[in-house]
């Protein structure tokens, strides 16, 4: 046990001084990709409500394909594949796009489930009293959908944070790639990767707790048959 801990005492502060800025890159990558995923996913969810069946179908196919393909394959296609067509993306942009696209399918499903959870009568009533569809969505539908989908959206954010580690494989200088470089420099992979895991945990766990709290709050007042 001591031989496991001593390297932390010797090099821990140096490691942290390198890993923490990399965690910053991980965080900004995660947040940018999440924003992209929410925008794309919201668009896809809206398409699935369209009155044109062709649009509905293509949105559905998009979701099925993106959910069935590993993030890594999307990242490799964007980063290594696109340059063959004259589109060379820098690692960070490719990573943001790849993570954003892959999460957008999940976001779209979450928003759709949120829309499904609302009672139809609300929409009909608002339209009946002469509300414009735009106002209806802005003031009645969207606030409720966001409330309902917030816990699941947070879970997606956590999944995205974890997936961002894969961007190390397309040379984004994020936490995992930095840890890998450190481990070859110091020959203490166990300690360095455990420390890396702790950093990821420190970011993800509060989000998990928040997600669960929001979920419990949503369910409050609803009786379940849990024994």
């Amino acid at each position, binding site marked *: 046990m001591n031989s496991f801990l001593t390297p932390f005492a010797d090099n821990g502060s140096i490691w942290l001084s390198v890993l923490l800025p990399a965690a910053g890159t991980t965080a900004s990558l995660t947040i940018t990709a999440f924003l992209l995923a929410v925008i794309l996913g919201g668009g896809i969810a809206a398409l699935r409500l369209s009155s044109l069946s062709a649009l509905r179908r293509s949105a559905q196919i998009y979701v099925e394909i993106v959910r069935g393909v590993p993030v890594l*394959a999307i990242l490799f296609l964007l980063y290594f594949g696109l340059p*063959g067509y004259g589109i060379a993306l820098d690692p960070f942009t490719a990573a943001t796009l790849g993570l954003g696209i892959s999460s957008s399918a999940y976001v779209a499903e979450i928003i759709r489930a949120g829309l499904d959870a609302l009672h139809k009568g609300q929409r009909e009533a608002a339209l009946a009293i002469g509300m414009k569809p735009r106002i209806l969505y802005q003031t009645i539908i969207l606030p409720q959908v966001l409330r309902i989908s917030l816990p699941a959206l947070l879970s997606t954010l956590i999944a995205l944070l974890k997936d961002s580690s894969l961007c190390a494989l397309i040379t984004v200088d994020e936490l995992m790639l930095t840890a890998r470089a450190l481990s070859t420099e110091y020959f203490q992979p166990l300690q360095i990767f455990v420390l890396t895991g702790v950093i990821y945990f420190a970011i993800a766990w509060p989000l998990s707790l928040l997600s669960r709290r929001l979920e419990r709050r949503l369910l409050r007042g609803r009786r379940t048959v849990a024994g």
Partner: protein
Amino acid sequence: MSDPATLAATILPPLLRGAIVTVEVAAGAFLIAVVIGMLLALIKTFGRSLPLRACVDLYVETFRNVPALTHLFILYFGLASIGVKLTSLSAAILGLGLIGAATLADVFRAGFQSLHAGQREAALAIGMTPGTVLRFILMPQALRTTLPPLANYGAQLVKDTSIVAAIAAPEIMFFARSLVTSTFETTLIYLSAALLYLALSLPLSFAAGRLEKRLGGGR
């Protein structure tokens, strides 16, 4: 290399060999995840010992909030540095299995919680032992309700095997990467790899969707 037939003959055999390893890794990890996940769920649902339940929580949180790649690197590179040398395949199966156990623990627990407490009380009251109640009354029903999420987990798992290429386990993505460096047909190869994953995971997610509809229909 431009001749489609030769190209297919170069690309397909390694990718298919990789697909077999992908299925093996996914199957092995699935098995570990189901066994450990069920154990964790049983402790969380029926266990009375507080420290034991706290351990389960710690396990689930640790595996849920840390990327799979970090766990794989700890198992493969980390353990090797202290003399525990796992092959890339066994590290891959063990890693994905342990991560999956955390996911399935919650799935199974939800399955048990969906059962009415009265069932257990009634079975105990007519003299069944707790073990028999679990085996013949609770487990079959809990497993039935957890089938859709289990199939979903399987689909997810097939995709997650792609990351074990990072510890040199010879699955689809691993072969795809080495093919790219030898043929430079980047887009074609990664697209084929993506299609292979899609072909492996789509049936599982369709099954999940159908099971969900079917099981929900009876209510």
